[in-house]
């Protein structure tokens, strides 16, 4: 059976140009870039050239680009690194502001810090899954040292007002602003002027797994999480992943240059799917429509009882449709924390489906998707739901 994949938020295929880059550099640039010999020097030069290219695209300094193993590490480095620096400098308890809908790599990192005595405010969101500027302003305390808010929510696609938050915090230079940009990069316009720390992952944008980056602005002081060599300004010791870095930069260049064209196509697909799903009475749409949501994510729930996300995912898989519900990093949870924050409804939060799209998806693919969902809803209502799982 042919499979149609609609889980591009979890991971994307390698872009062909990136795959070529990854293969060639893995084969040819195997020397350790920290080695003193010529081959090491050449590998190091390629990494630094990539850093330069990236800094040009993102309008930051090359020294502000820190390569990591991925978004989880970047988010942990940004948050824990900033908190530890604060704790070294002052006896005052640090206060961090975040939201209830962050990815687990931010949310659980903050929860871990609560256990270490750090004060954290997890702000609520509205029914569209969007945090308000007013709530951030109100939550700021004298000891607030970090605000961490994602750009695009990974479950619903809700766009957070990061540029407005950045403007608000511009007047408070002692508060760092961290943005988890994993689901927003290459989809939405990005301006890093008022952002101090910015996270990006390779495999969400056509790059390889195991590589990501953290933009750390010059004025930001972070304490490293690991200790070892002096790679990445000592902030991220460990042998540099040369093929990963070069491939990541290739993927970023492609994402950046093709963004507008891709978004036009994705907006058409989003509108087509959203409009059709809205017509199914047993379904409730959790994602808002653009411009409140990014056009590559649609989240909906089954309104009735006794139908979990797991069941819906399994039934769709029998029809060759690959979807997910929550973030791949929290896929065994009973209810979606994000949807609970938006709806406070356990039924809706335990029966959600996330569809996420990519530029390779065609209108025919999404027509089949909508047909399959509609058919599944009809079957779930009228038949033994477990019988639907039989091949």
């Amino acid at each position, binding site marked *: 059976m042919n499979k149609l994949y609609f889980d591009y938020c979890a991971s994307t295929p390698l872009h062909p140009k990136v795959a070529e880059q990854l293969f060639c550099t893995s084969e040819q640039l195997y020397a350790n870039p920290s080695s003193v010999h010529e081959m090491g020097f050449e590998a190091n030069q390629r990494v630094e050239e990539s850093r330069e290219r990236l800094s040009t695209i993102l309008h930051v300094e090359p020294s502000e680009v820190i390569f990591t193993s991925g978004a989880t590490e970047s988010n942990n480095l940004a948050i824990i690194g900033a908190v530890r620096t604060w704790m070294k400098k002052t006896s005052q308890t640090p206060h961090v502001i975040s939201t209830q809908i962050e990815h687990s790599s931010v949310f659980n990192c903050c929860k871990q810090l609560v256990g270490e005595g750090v004060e954290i405010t997890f702000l609520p969101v509205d029914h569209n899954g969007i945090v308000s500027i007013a709530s951030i302003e109100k939550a700021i305390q004298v000891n607030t040292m970090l605000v961490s808010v994602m750009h695009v929510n990974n479950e619903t696609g809700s766009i957070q007002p990061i540029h407005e938050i950045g403007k608000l915090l511009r007047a408070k230079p002692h508060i760092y602003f961290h943005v988890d940009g994993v689901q927003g990069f290459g989809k939405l316009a990005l301006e890093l002027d008022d952002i101090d720390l910015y996270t990006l992952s390779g495999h969400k944008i056509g790059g390889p797994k195991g590589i990501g980056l953290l933009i750390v602005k010059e004025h930001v002081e972070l304490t490293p999480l690991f200790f070892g060599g002096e790679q990445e300004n000592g902030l991220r010791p460990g042998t540099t992943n040369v093929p990963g870095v070069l491939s990541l930069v290739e993927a970023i260049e492609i994402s950046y240059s093709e963004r507008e064209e891709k978004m036009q196509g994705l907006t058409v697909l989003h509108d087509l799917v959203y409009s059709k799903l809205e017509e199914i009475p047993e379904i409730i749409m959790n994602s808002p429509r653009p411009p409140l949501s990014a056009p590559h994510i649609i989240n909906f729930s089954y309104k009735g*009882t006794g139908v979990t996300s*797991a069941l819906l995912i399994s039934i769709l898989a029998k029809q060759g449709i690959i979807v997910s519900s929550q973030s791949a990093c929290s896929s065994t*949870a*009973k209810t979606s924390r994000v949807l609970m924050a938006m709806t406070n409804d356990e039924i809706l939060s335990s029966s959600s489906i996330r569809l996420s799209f990519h530029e390779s998806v065609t209108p025919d693919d999404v027509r089949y998707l909508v047909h399959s969902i509609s058919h599944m809803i009809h079957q779930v209502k009228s038949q033994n*739901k477990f019988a639907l799982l*039989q091949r």
Partner: protein
Amino acid sequence: MTLDNGLNLGELITNKEYSDQNDQLFNLYKYKGKKVLIFVSMHCVRCIELLPEIRTVHLPNTSVIIFSTGNQEDHEQLDDFFQRKMKIVSLTSEQMEQDFSVTTHPFCIFVDEYQQVCNKGTVYNGKDLLELVSVIGEGKRKKLFSNLF
């Protein structure tokens, strides 16, 4: 398969009464012969996909008892689906951990006629299930747990 979950090998299962899908109380100890206890969550994709596989597996002289996080409606449909051949017990994830030390799903505990755990592991399909109930034969098991016999 993983072995880092569930009651220890050789350990006696809990001597407790449970209520099945028909609200009938039963005690696992009064169930004679070998038993396969399967633990599933209705929120776990792998568990949901295991259910049709269980239906296809024939385990001679072995009772299959399903412990599920589902509600009454789920279990009525499940009972229908299994053609009323298995006991289905509603248990929360917390109760599964408390009574059987099961923390991840889907999970299976194979219990011998002496109420001892003789094998356990994560099962994703019928093949895993068959392997789990056949991997430790009678003689080998007695040797492994000779102190208990």
